[in-house]
Structure formats: C-alpha cells, structure tokens
C-alpha cells in the first residue's frame, strides 16, 4: 500500500512538473490580466455599489476561467498519454494502472488549484482595494469554484478515456450548462406538470453532476445567510461525486486496451 501511494505521488509530481515546464501557467497570467480588465471596466461604469459589481464580475469570470482551464488541461493529458504512447514507459514498470490514473489526476488537480488560487488572489485584491468588505462566504465561494473545476476536470478526463477530445469537450460543456440550469428547470411549470419530463430531469439530476450546488455567488452578492449544513452538504456532494468519477476513470482505464 505504501509503495502504491509512493508511486501515485511520484506520477503526480512529474505530471505537475511537466505541466509547469510546459508553461501552462503562462496562460493564467493572460487570463488574470483579462479578469482584472473586465472587473475594472465593470466597476468603472457602475454607480451605487461598485465593489459588489467588482465581486460579481470577479467571481463570475473566475468561475468560468477556472472551468476553461480545467477543460483545457483535463482533455489533453490522458488522451495524449495514450495516443502518443508515453503511457507505455510508465505502466511497463511495476506500476498498477490505478496508481497511474490517480497520480495523473492528482498532478492535474495540483496545477488546476494553483491556477485558480492565482486568479482568485488577483480578483479579490481588486475587490478589497476598492473598499470591498470581507465575508467568510467569499472564501467558501472560492473553495467551491475549486471543487467545481475539479469536477469539470474529472468529467472531461473520464470522457477523454472513451471518446475523442472534441466530443469530450462538447459533452463536458453541455453537462456543465445543464448542471447549473437543472435547479431552475425544476422551478418551471413544464417540470411540475409533465410527469415524463419530471422523470427525465430527476434521472439526470440523480446521475449527472449538479454543478448548481457548488454555486455560492448569489449568496455572496446578496449577503444571504447560508447554513453551515448546506455548505457541508454541498461540499460532501462535490467530494463524493469526485470520488465516483475517479473510480470510474480507474475502472475504464483498467479495462482499456492501450493499442
């Protein structure tokens, strides 16, 4: 067991190193500048409570940029590993396939979290510099953006194991949009009056990721009170779903013919 953990961390370390050297972090600098610009423009054209607008734009663009980075790094790495056969050199060693997949995913999550933390620091620095007030929910919101991006990363990684890169990206974007829209759909009269539509939506809700549970932006902006039980339930949901996706990736990769 200790040996398997050592190998997982070795693979994670070199995946992280490879990504850092590939200058993927450079993209974050451009994204960060874009983020600053968008937030600054929104703030400059606002009357009333500019700091709220800065936070709204900041968290919104942070969330979207993080998802974009997750898709960008998640779709390529496992797919390329198999396509370019670099995986052969690793699993020809005494490395179980599950160690390889967990190590790769951990390396990706590492680089993703650093990316998001850099962007979050930029966003929040601007917010505080224009007089925004600290609320602990802001930190929860950033934490949930990280969790949401990890989920997106795992969805796209699992899909890339069974499909092409383009299809994986399209399906991930669809599941992201639907995962946010599903809570709104449940409030519509179509859902309430149409039983077959209800079954379909409930089934979707049961199987596919409910990203809306990790969205705290509205709570932050309108300074609504959120119960800790809700926060912990959402966090547990995100973590359990991530665990489920990692298990799925392990099973698929274990059965996969690497030809």
């Amino acid at each position, binding site marked *: 067991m200790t040996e398997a953990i050592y190998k997982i961390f070795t693979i994670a370390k070199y995946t992280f190193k490879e990504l850092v050297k*590939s200058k993927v972090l450079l993209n974050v600098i451009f994204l960060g500048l874009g983020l600053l610009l968008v937030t600054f423009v929104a703030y400059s054209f606002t009357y009333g409570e500019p700091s709220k607008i800065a936070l709204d734009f900041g968290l919104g663009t942070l969330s979207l940029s993080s998802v974009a980075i997750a898709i960008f790094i998640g779709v390529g790495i496992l797919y390329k590993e198999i396509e370019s056969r670099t995986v052969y050199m690793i699993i020809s060693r005494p490395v179980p396939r599950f160690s390889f997949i967990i190590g790769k995913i951990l390396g990706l999550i590492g680089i993703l979290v650093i990316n998001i933390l850099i962007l979050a620091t930029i966003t929040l620095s601007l917010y505080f510099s224009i007089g925004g007030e600290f609320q602990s929910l802001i930190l929860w919101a950033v934490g949930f953006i990280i969790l949401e991006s990890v989920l997106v990363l795992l969805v796209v990684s699992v899909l890339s194991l069974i499909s092409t890169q383009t299809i994986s990206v399209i399906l991930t974007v669809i599941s992201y949009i639907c995962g946010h829209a599903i809570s709104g759909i449940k409030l519509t009269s179509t859902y309430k009056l149409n039983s077959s539509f209800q079954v379909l939506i409930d089934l979707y809700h049961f199987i596919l990721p409910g990203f809306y549970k990790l969205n705290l932006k509205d709570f932050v902006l309108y300074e609504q009170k959120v119960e800790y039980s809700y926060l912990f339930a959402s966090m547990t949901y995100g973590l359990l779903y991530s665990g489920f996706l990692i298990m799925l990736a392990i099973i698929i990769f274990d059965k996969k*013919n*690497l*030809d």
Partner: protein
Amino acid sequence: MIEFCEISKVFNTDLLKKNFQALSNVSFSIPEGKIIGFLGANGAGKTTSIKIAMDFIRPTSGDILYDKSLGGSKKEAFKYIGYLPERPFFYSHLTGRDFCKYLSQLSNVSNQLFKERVNKWAPIFKIEHALDRYIKNYSKGMLQRIGFLATIIHDPKLIILDEPLSGLDPIGRKELKDVIVELNKEGKTIFFSSHIISDVEEICDSVIFLKNGEIVFNGSVDQVISANIKPVTNISYFKENQVKTIKVDNNNKSNQIKRIIEDGGDIISVQADRPTLEQIFYNVK
C-alpha cells in the same frame, strides 16, 4: 522467462468491417540469457505480441506465463523487465535526466544507484551531453538513446525492445547493437523485434519468424541457416585477367576444380553456398 501459450488476438476496429485476426495461436518462449530476434514484415503481429506480453492489450485467447526468474507472476514480472517501445515519445517538457529519474523512482531505484547507473551508461549511449536538455529538443537518435538508458536504469533481467534500431543511422545502429551484446554478456536476456534481418543475424542467438500472425520458424540462427544450406559450392578463380565465380553441385566440386586448374585458371576461393538469414526470410515469405 516468458512463455506465450496459444495466444490469439482479434481486433474489431469497425462495426461494419470484418474482424482482423492479428495473432493465431502463437506459442513460444523466451529462454534466459539469450538474444532473441523477433522477425516479421510490417503488420505480421510483432508489436501486438509484445503489447500482450507487457499487458498493454489483452489477448482474445491464450495465456502469458512469467517464470520464477521474473517473480512468477505478472504483478512481479514488471520489476524485472525493461521495455522500450517502437517510435519512442517521451515527456517533451522534462529533461532527459528527469525522465530517467522518473522511471527509476517508479522502479524503486535509490538516488545513489540512479546516479551510478547514469554515470555508467550515459557515456556508453553517448547521451551524457544532452541529459539536462529538454526532451523536446532531442533528435530521433537521441530519443532512442535516452529511451534505452531509461529502459535499463532499473537493471532489468529481461529487456524487450520493439524495433530499437529503426530510423537510426548506420553508426547509431552499430553502437546500439554493441550495447545489446554488452548487456547480454552481463547476463541480461534480450528480446527484440526488427524487420532489419541483417541486424538480427549479426547479434541474435535465436530467431522467431512471424508471418500473418503465425509463427513460421522458431529456433537458433545457425539451425535455420544450416537447414537452408543447399548442396552447392561457389568457386572463384582468376583466368585471362578476370575473376570469375561459378556455382557447382557439391558432388561435382573436385572435378570442376581440377578442370579449372588444367585450363590454366588460379583458384581464389572455394566456399559452401551459405544463404543469409535475409535470403531465407524472403523464401519463407
């Protein structure tokens, strides 16, 4: 060390197309301490066989057995196997040294041993000057060399090489062949696939011929050559300011030599007509 038992592999690439039988009941074993050449034309099933041995793909039927020298099980065997794939692609944003270190850590090689082995083998592979360069800047020959170094960094007992010499210039090929022989002298078993038959003939103890997914020959190089020697002798002689060579039946050899001498010719050489492995391979085809 490894035994292929009745291995078959069928690929179903497209629902609308017929299944493709890549291997049919392939059985052979890799004996310890030898250099074994795995020959066959492109598409014969060499790489598929190696991928099955390395558990990258699973056979449709049949079994691979790993003997006690490799730990007796698939799980243990990979501690003692070094594998170099065909067309090596490595992590382009790592340096050669990082890449070797990565693989050595996965094989539980200590830092001290890693340094010793790099110091020993990097000059032999003539790659020490490029160890700290990013792999993306390597040439094809350098990729092959760093791949080879990474393959043996954990001191494996069995080294499996898939087309290790393809795409290299003659000097590069000669150098890598010398290393293969050197490793074999150190007690390593080498199993390598190739379609360059002269390379196999030069360094291998035995060969396995694969054709359309079936074994057509499995035995020692001497055995295959002596089985294909024809009862014919080549006689070279010098006459009228020209070197001439004739092929004669072995039964008629003495009479023919006598006749050449009587006609004023000088005999230069008398040699049995020994076919090359390449000629035999083409006949098998």
